[in-house]
């Protein structure tokens, strides 16, 4: 058993990074062709294939199609009506979702919000509720005139009024900030009812009554990083990549993904793989200059009098030295001459 285990052990000097890069890079080239082959339910059309791969590796702040699966407490898990109510409670409704237009009256110092009756109906809201909510959020006096909400800005400064109008448009009237629209769906695996949203707001959702905070899943890596920390982000990167590769019917050893995720999160921060992340923070001046923005790196190195330790692969190949990986990793601890010298001294 012990022998078998040793067989799988990586030898010293094995260039694991290069192997991981090749193991991930090769299937990535194949994914270009497959990018549009996946479709699902309307709510489940998520970025897949190469675009999603690029998104993860580039450590984009927000995925192109964020979503969250929310499991609910066992007590209400069977009651679809309760779930629908919960979904309504979570669903984020912004002013722009229910209004037709916003009119700014600079001379009077007021902003008029024209509400859309049909949209209000659809969201089970009334003009009254909206007006009181805005009053509460902005702490400005609001008067209701039919379908119009008149907000007294308390200033006649054009810039301030414009800013207010812009902010008003983004204001959340109902639901959780950044949670997106929620809907009820059935988990295809467990056949249990759960909620799905088209955005991610873990911090807001965790406090909502009735949801199972231990069983929330989101594809937004940065949201996990903000709420749960780097370790969670690292795991999220791995699960997201694994899911993606599984969908694309590509099998890559998990170790490669782990190595990539580790490299991206090693500093306690989620870094991308590129000029502003991993590659841009290499120690060697030559290695950085060989990648991108050659002149910038050389000039900065000159300005700060940097010296290149010549420990990496790129810079040693550049100079024509043996690389310090694989067979080049090993060095003699004691040199031949030193042995001869010590022998002489003994004598």
């Amino acid at each position, binding site marked *: 058993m012990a022998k078998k285990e040793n067989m799988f052990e990586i030898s010293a*000097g*094995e*260039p694991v990074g*290069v*192997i991981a*890069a*090749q193991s991930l890079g090769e299937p990535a080239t194949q994914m270009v062709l497959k990018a549009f082959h996946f479709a699902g339910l309307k709510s489940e059309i998520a970025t897949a294939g190469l675009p999603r791969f690029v998104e993860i590796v580039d450590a984009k702040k927000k995925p192109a199609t964020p979503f969250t699966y929310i499991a609910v407490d066992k007590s209400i898990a069977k009651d679809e009506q309760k779930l629908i109510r919960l979904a309504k409670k979570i669903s984020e409704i912004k002013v722009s979702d229910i209004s037709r237009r916003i009119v700014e009256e600079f001379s009077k110092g007021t902003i008029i919000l024209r509400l859309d009756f049909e949209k209000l109906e659809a969201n089970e809201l009334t003009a009254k509720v909206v007006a009181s909510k805005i009053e509460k959020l902005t702490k400005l006096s609001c008067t209701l005139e039919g379908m119009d909400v008149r907000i007294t800005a308390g200033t006649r400064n054009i810039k301030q009024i414009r800013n207010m109008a812009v902010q008003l448009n983004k204001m959340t009237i109902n639901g959780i900030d950044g949670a997106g629209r929620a809907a009820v769906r059935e988990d295809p695996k467990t056949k249990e009812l759960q909620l799905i949203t088209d955005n991610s707001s873990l911090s807001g959702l965790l406090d909502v009554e009735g949801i199972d905070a231990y069983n929330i899943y989101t594809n937004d890596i940065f949201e996990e990083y903000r709420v749960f920390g780097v370790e969670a982000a690292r795991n999220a990167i791995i699960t997201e990549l694994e899911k993606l590769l599984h969908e694309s019917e590509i099998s890559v050893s998990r170790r490669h993904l782990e190595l990539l995720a580790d490299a991206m999160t090693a500093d306690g921060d989620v870094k991308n793989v590129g000029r502003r992340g991993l590659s841009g923070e290499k120690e060697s001046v030559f290695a950085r200059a060989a990648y991108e923005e050659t*002149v910038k790196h*050389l*000039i900065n*190195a*000159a300005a700060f009098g940097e*010296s290149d330790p010549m420990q990496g*692969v790129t810079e040693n*190949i*550049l*100079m*024509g*030295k*043996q*690389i*310090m*990986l*694989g*067979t*080049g*990793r090993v060095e003699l601890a004691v040199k031949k001459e030193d042995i001869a010298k010590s022998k002489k001294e003994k004598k």
Partner: protein
Amino acid sequence: MAKNEEKCIVYMNGRILGYVKDGVAYANEIRKGRRNGLLSGEINVSYVNKLNEVHINADSGRVRKPYIIVEDGKSKLTEELLVKLRNKEIDFGYLIRRGIIEYLDAEEEENTDVAMKESDITKNTTHLEVDPAGIFGFTLSTAPYLEHNSAPRHGMSANFIKQSQGVFATNFNLRFESRSYVLFYPQAPLVQTSVYKSVGMQRHPSGQNFVVALSTYYGYNMGDAVVVNKAAVDRGLGRSMYYKMYADEERRYPGGQKDSFKIPPATAEGYLGEHAYAKLGDDGLIEPETKVLEGDVLIGKVAPPRFLEESIGESGLQEKLRDDSSVLKPSENGVVDSVIVTESTGATRVVKVRVRGLRVPEVGDKFASRHGQKGVIAYVVPQEDMPFTEQGVVPDLLLNPHGIPQRLTFGHLLEELAGKSAAMTGKIVDGTAFTGKGSDRVEEYGKILESFGFNKMGNETFYDGITGKRFKATIFNGLVYYNRLYHMVSNKLQVRSKGPVQILTHQPTEGKARQGGLRFGEMERDVLVGYGASLLVKERLLDQSDKGTVLVCKNCGNIGYRDYIKRVDVCPICGGSDLAAVEISYAFKLLLDEIKSMHIFPKIKMKG
């Protein structure tokens, strides 16, 4: 703009001409004028519905195509006219002048409803295709049964036809093309099309009818590889001649100097050695029918030196000369076919030498049928080892059957069947696209084959040439017109061990013409790094590339040099003389130089 909202803008060759009220009626009026001869037939007009604009085009460079005009659901090319056309009472020009056929450009086509066949005509039809096969281009139209092949293969097919070797011009013996290929025994295809016949391609064909069997052969024809019969090759199958022309001119230079054709004197700069000029005549030109090998001089020429100072020799009388002979390119050989001496427009003597080389099909040469089915010879099999039929027929070429279903080139199979029946009857078969139903054709050819005692589907019993055993399955075989393409290994083969390097980087040159190496690129490097083969990386990228030894100052870290007169190493920056010899990539030295040029001062620190 509001003023013109209901008005339709008329553009003439892209410029605004004016406005009309009803664009459709206006465009129709122009068409009417064109058809009855009031306007030139070269005018095209289109009404753009989306923009409510009329575009009239009468400029050059539009691709146009003829269509039969349809009016009131009836083709204007009546039976009566067709009879007259057949009797040669009228011609195509008559039909155009009478407004029966008109040419449309791409833009006007947008306004039409074209019927493919006369039976497809409806109330709304405006035009009728002259021939449904007209959707194919000229080159492709020479290939048969196009309607049975998949669209991507059409593009490939047309490309291969263009690349085929044949008789490109009947006066090829008098021509001096920079390079040309002439097929030895060209044959007209057994399956032809109307376009093929009407352009007279039978008189200078570009391929041969191969006996093809759809069979594997011991793994030699996997993928797109093909196996050919050696006996057939020896009989002249696919054999061709390759002609290459070398030309030179006695140029005149300012200052009265002049090139001259002659065997260069041994004192000339760049003299190639006596043996290189051995085959030249007294006039410095090679004789026709001389066998020439790589490195042989074809045209001996001396030119005045490149720079003025050199021309004034020490004695002042004897001028130094430069050898500027034309040498046979590396890895080429053949026989001098023809040598001509003429004069250029500038009244200088011009010599053209044409070298010919035999190109017998060999492993690596490329062939293609007219259905986008290409293949490379992987094995030239001795006839006795080829499979043979009961009658003793041995195929010329074995094509792997796996190449057919995936690529959907059923035209290839149909041609095979038609070719076989044509070979039996001795009559050429017509394979023009859309002239018959596929199943009818199979039946027709099958009947002919049956009447000659063959299986109607073209299958035959075969025996293995090596074991003599009968194959359990019958094998489909027939005749297919194959083209030999001009991609031949003997013109592409290239090797390098040591050779020329680039001046700037000291790295090996690139390309066959410069005896170059093959690039060991970034990704290849990554593979070696991935294996941890550190010394192999160094060997490829340094020792076998641009290795150089430089002297590095131990004191200041700059690159110095050795003063061979004083026998000391010198550092030009700090003036020190303690320098170490270091092996680095020459490209790295260049990088250091370039960094210095941008006012950055790099220093090399050394261990110990």
